[in-house]
């Protein structure tokens, strides 16, 4: 067990280190170490100390843990999940302990949270002196941070491809993230969010009436982490498309889509972390996609299918399916996607990621995909 003050860390996942860090600092009064932005070194380190056939997210997380511990982290957080992710906590812990690191693993899977109050119990383990009121008070600001990031990113993806002045969107987006890191309370978050959206709205666009629309679907980690997916969303957006993605932290862990208030309340009360990330929406999406899938194959696969059908129905021009190499739940979703592709005449680009995938290969495929949907749109007027 490490001595001295606890310094927490959760692996890099997009920009979500901002709300997580905020919560740890203001609710638990503990230090939070953001892992440094992922680079080739992170992946190399992760791959070196991971089993060869494990999925790329495991390796990314491994690299993040090592780099965060180099920065001084001593408590590593790992979530559970309904795929192999459910065992990752133990495996990471064992490997890192064998390497000689001194740390504490906060493995959420092992707590068997079945209830919202269990969550408080878990938090109390980390910070025994924190009062309930102190834990609850920063929750609204944390939640608002997550939804703000997701809304801003949605707008960014859907419009950045049509900016008149190159780099205008990036400038606002980067300032938004920098400001958000400084936010102290809910009021700040609201203001920063409002300012970013106003600045976005002021950017002159040259957007056609019916722009090309692309939906991104796929595996939970790879889809949300731009470094892991080689920034495909930005790349295809910059070619001149509107990029849509449902999967984000707000939709996957915070917002229960049930319209019935009682059912919604019940879903929140029985928030099951062992079913991460799908506890609050899996049953609803399961019903929506029952034509294609009779049961859940784990992790985010149901949302892949549901959203693929949804985007197809909305008349999108193409879909991009991302997954790490060997991701079983997403592999199970692929035959279903073939059916959706055939039924709705929508092309789907399948991208597989491993640690050594080169940028060039992905760019070639994205460029070809863009050319194809653009030419296709020209001959089939909407």
């Amino acid at each position, binding site marked *: 067990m490490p001595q001295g003050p606890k310094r927490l860390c959760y692996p890099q996942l997009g920009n979500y280190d901002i709300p997580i860090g905020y919560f740890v600092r203001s609710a638990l009064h503990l230090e939070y170490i953001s892992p440094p932005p992922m*680079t080739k070194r992170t992946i190399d380190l992760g791959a070196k100390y991971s089993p060869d056939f494990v999925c790329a997210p495991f390796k990314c997380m491994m690299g993040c843990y090592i780099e965060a511990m180099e920065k001084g982290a001593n408590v590593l957080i790992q979530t559970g999940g309904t795929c192999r992710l459910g065992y990752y906590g133990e495996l990471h812990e064992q490997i890192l302990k064998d390497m000689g690191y001194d740390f504490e693993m906060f493995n959420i899977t092992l707590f068997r949270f079945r209830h919202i109050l269990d969550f408080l119990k878990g938090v109390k383990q980390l910070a025994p002196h924190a009062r309930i009121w102190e834990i609850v008070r920063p929750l609204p600001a944390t939640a608002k941070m997550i939804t703000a990031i997701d809304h801003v990113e949605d707008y960014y993806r859907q419009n950045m491809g049509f900016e008149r002045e190159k780099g205008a969107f990036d400038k606002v987006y980067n300032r938004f993230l920098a400001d958000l890191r400084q936010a102290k309370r809910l009021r700040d978050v609201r203001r920063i969010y409002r300012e970013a959206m106003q600045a976005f709205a002021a950017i002159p666009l040259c957007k056609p009436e019916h722009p090309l629309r692309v939906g991104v679907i796929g595996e939970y980690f790879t889809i949300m982490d731009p470094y892991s997916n080689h920034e495909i969303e930005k790349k295809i957006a910059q070619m001149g498309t509107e990029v849509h993605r449902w999967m984000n932290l707000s939709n996957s862990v915070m917002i229960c889509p049930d319209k019935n208030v009682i059912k919604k309340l019940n879903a929140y009360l029985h928030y099951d972390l062992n079913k991460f990330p799908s506890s609050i929406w899996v049953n609803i999406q399961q019903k929506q996609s029952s034509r294609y899938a009779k049961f859940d194959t784990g992790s985010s696969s149901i949302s892949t299918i549901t959203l693929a059908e949804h985007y197809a129905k909305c008349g999108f021009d193409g879909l991009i399916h991302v997954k790490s190499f060997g991701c079983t739940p997403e592999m199970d979703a692929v035959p279903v*996607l073939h059916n959706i592709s*055939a039924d709705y005449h929508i*092309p789907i680009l399948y991208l597989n990621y491993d640690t050594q995938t080169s940028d060039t290969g992905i760019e*070639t495929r994205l460029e*070809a995909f863009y*050319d194809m949907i653009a*030419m296709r749109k020209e001959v089939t007027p909407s």
Partner: protein
Amino acid sequence: MKKAYLGIDIGSISTKGVIIDEEKNILCGIYLWTEGNPMGAAKKVIAALGEQFDHSAYQVVAAGTTGSARKLVGAMCNASIVKNEITAHAVGTTTLHPDVRTILEIGGQDSKIICVENGVAVDYAMNTLCAAGTGSFLSSQARRLGVEVEEFGKIALGSSNPTPIAARCTVFAESDLVHKIQMGHKKQDIIAGLCHAVANNYLNNIGKGKKILAPIVFQGGVSKNEGVVKAFADALGEEIIVDENGHLMGCYGAAILALGSGIEKPFSFDVAEMEFTTREITCPNCANHCEVICVYREGELIDSWGNRCERGEVREG
């Protein structure tokens, strides 16, 4: 003086070049090996085309490049358009075969399928993370069996009883192949089996979930192998069209794209004589260590790429 358009396709194994006129007729074409030297191969292609080309009647006003070294050679010959090989192949084939519905393509390192509807590509797939069942696999197995890869097809057609060979993965296929040789299977049966393995591997991986409708055009280097063509015809139960210019389809598409781009840039056959060098710089500014490639013409920087952010930009001078 009539206008002409140059297209070059620099693949991993072979480099192809073609010059077309404004009516998209092929004026001259050339096919040679890349031999690990894309710039040298491109120069050779340009020199060879320059010899065949009627300089008094036509002038090249735009160039297009495609293939895995498209960027490098595009910078070299001041290309109007640099396009990925999937788009170039689709454009090239649909121009020559307007009614095509499915394009099967197996090259040296990659394989792809393009589905076409009303003359426009509507879906495609390309191999990822694995080069099993491509041209380089066939040529390495040919070497093992001691036959020229060019003869492969003819030998395969002579077999009436192809040996089943596992083709899921190159490594498995190779050990299965060695095993079958040592068991005493006939060489021509093994070669025919390999051709079937390539076709089946293609249909099970790249072609998975795709509707393969006739007319089917098969192209890329491997389409010159009659054994694989027959294996595809057997597996699909359809006639497989192999164009005599099938190997030039990528550069033909690049030339058409150059024509269609409307961008005219001066092109000179002197490129073949000029000295081009590249230099690789590892950007020291962060742990990403981007590998930046700089291209020099006669010692002068003409282009650079490979940096992920502006910190790694290399400027002229």
